[in-house]
């Protein structure tokens, strides 16, 4: 955990010309941006060779506020653009910010295939269980029964679990936390940034403006508390399972941490062998 003031983080990393942000009061996205910058600070990563790529959505506005190269692309396409950036210049650190809809609905196929190829990207997905930017419609992550503007009587579809999806397809690094776990988040983002290959960090985050209001969840603080209460650490979860019990809670923690040669490194080696 980094002992650096917010003021210093703002001074060092933010693009003042872009302020104020579009984020609502109480929104969790700013927190995730802060965690990411703290991880970058702790690792002393060169911001001049770091590119932030995003799609479209509230979460995808993050790169605009960071004073570095940034590529704000199209809804769902961030990972595909990022694949081009990384493969064309492997010396760049490529970090993707994506919403749960951006990553899991319209961009779902790019997400799966970038994991399959194991492109060396760090993908940070801010999951607020809803479409924030467009005013609170149902997302592929919206829990059953939750109300959104396009499920006014409650959602009847089964949701996706993005982290489990990433794990099953074979991402070498997967972690999930909530905005109520800043220290753990920073530490996982640090691990993700250092991991060659596709690393995925999902952060469950409050959208008080839509998800909170439509589901009568109270203030942003109440929502954060709720996130904490409705999740369970993977270590505890495994213990419960071993005891033959089960739980409805969402599993958080470091879910995968293995080694697997990334696509760019493999490609370079393969080119060398052809010559």
């Amino acid at each position: 955990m980094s002992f650096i003031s917010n003021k210093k983080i703002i001074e060092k990393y933010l693009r003042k010309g872009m302020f104020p942000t579009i984020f609502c009061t109480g929104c969790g996205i700013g927190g995730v941006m802060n965690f990411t910058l703290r991880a970058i600070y702790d690792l002393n990563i060169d911001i001049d060779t770091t590119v932030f790529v995003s799609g479209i959505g509230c979460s995808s506005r993050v790169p605009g506020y960071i004073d570095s190269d940034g590529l704000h692309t199209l809804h769902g396409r961030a990972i595909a653009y990022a694949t081009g950036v990384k493969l064309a210049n492997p010396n760049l650190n490529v970090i993707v910010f994506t919403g749960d809809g951006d990553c899991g609905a319209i961009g779902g196929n790019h997400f799966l295939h970038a994991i399959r190829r194991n492109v060396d990207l760090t993908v940070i997905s801010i999951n607020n269980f809803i479409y924030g930017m467009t005013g609170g419609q149902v997302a592929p992550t919206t829990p059953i029964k939750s109300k959104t503007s396009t499920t006014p009587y409650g959602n009847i579809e089964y949701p996706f679990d993005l982290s489990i999806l990433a794990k099953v397809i074979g991402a070498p690094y997967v972690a999930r936390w909530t905005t109520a776990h800043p220290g753990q988040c920073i530490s996982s983002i640090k691990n993700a940034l250092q991991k060659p290959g596709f690393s995925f960090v999902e952060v469950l985050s409050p959208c008080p403006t839509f998800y909170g209001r439509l589901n009568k969840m109270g203030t942003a603080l109440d929502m954060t508390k709720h996130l904490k209460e409705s999740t369970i650490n993977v270590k505890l979860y495994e213990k419960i399972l071993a005891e033959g019990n089960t739980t409805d809670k969402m599993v958080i923690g470091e879910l995968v941490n293995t080694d697997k040669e990334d696509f760019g490194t493999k490609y370079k080696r393969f080119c060398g062998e052809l010559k």
Partner: protein
Amino acid sequence: MTNEIIRLVGKKDLFIQGDEATVYGALLADCKFFAGYPITPATEVAEGMAIWMPKLGRVCVQMEDEIASIAAVIGASCTGVRAMTATSGPGFSLMQECIGYACMAETPCVIVNVQRGGPSTGQPTEAAQGDIMQTMWGTHGDHQIIALAPKSVQETLDLTIEAFNLSDDYRVPVVVLLDAELGHMREKVVLPEVKNIKVEEKIKSNIESDNFKPYRKHFKKSSKIPNFKHFGLGYKTYITGLTHDERGFPVTTSAEVHEDLVTRLIDKILDDIDNVWYYEDYLIDDAEIMVISYGITSRPAASAVKMAREKGIKVGHIRLITIWPFNYEKIKELLKNVHTVIVPEMNLGQMIHPIREVVGKDVKVILAPRIGGAIHSPKEIFKYIGEVKP
């Protein structure tokens, strides 16, 4: 560059298909990144790239679809390398949103579209010129792109190289439009000498990011092309498809900023149209009838004009090599003495629309359409010429 490629390929004279010609064109133009998705009749482009690109240490990747392909190409281009994709109608339709992005963000990229019969899956193996309007207007919003339509395999190779140059110079997507016939036709080509491949500066900047204005005009020759700095140089370049100011920062509700940006995107090319608009003319000096064609159709069109001249008919031929932008002024001038224009197209009438617009009511414009796959025969076009009444 040429020598390196000749050494790799083993010879300078090749007998290849149009699709393959785009591959050699890209290799010669120093294209460092290719991403594509297989589709008839453009698959041979991806296959050719898969053979040569890794041997040169350049990137070639088959993506999960055409949207991902063009997206990866644009991403690669942001790092300062030349990048290309290739597709046909269905894939070209999927790419449209990203093509608009590249126009808005002013990211160079080359798209080869080997046209087949549409709409929809249509006639995968049959030639068509059905994407003429889509090439210009497929993506939403006002914009301008550049599209080139070769008529032979050699010209396909040469124009692919030119496409990279124009794309870099004007910071705009350039489409190379073939069709299934030209894409699969074999002809002899000679690998040309390619010089002056521009190398972007790789100097690191220490500029204050809020002061850096990557989208400021008045840098390059036509003055409205921005001096963009690619990723990794410390310029802290921010690229967005949202309407943005000179710094690249989103400003989405100002009519002034939007109008300024969008008109510049168009004017940066139209102000300089004579330098991007290529054409060829044949026997036009005393012509009273003009055949206007583009792409593969220009071959039977030229033969038909020759046949008609032998019969004493005063007919000329204009071949559009750059099909977009459409050079209204120049075409109007070329047509000032004719009473009839014949437009053979492998569609039910697309390029005929701007031609009609340019000549006004005094000149008769006749469409010679053909769909289904076969190209026009010279006789067929000759018949249209013969039937013209002064």
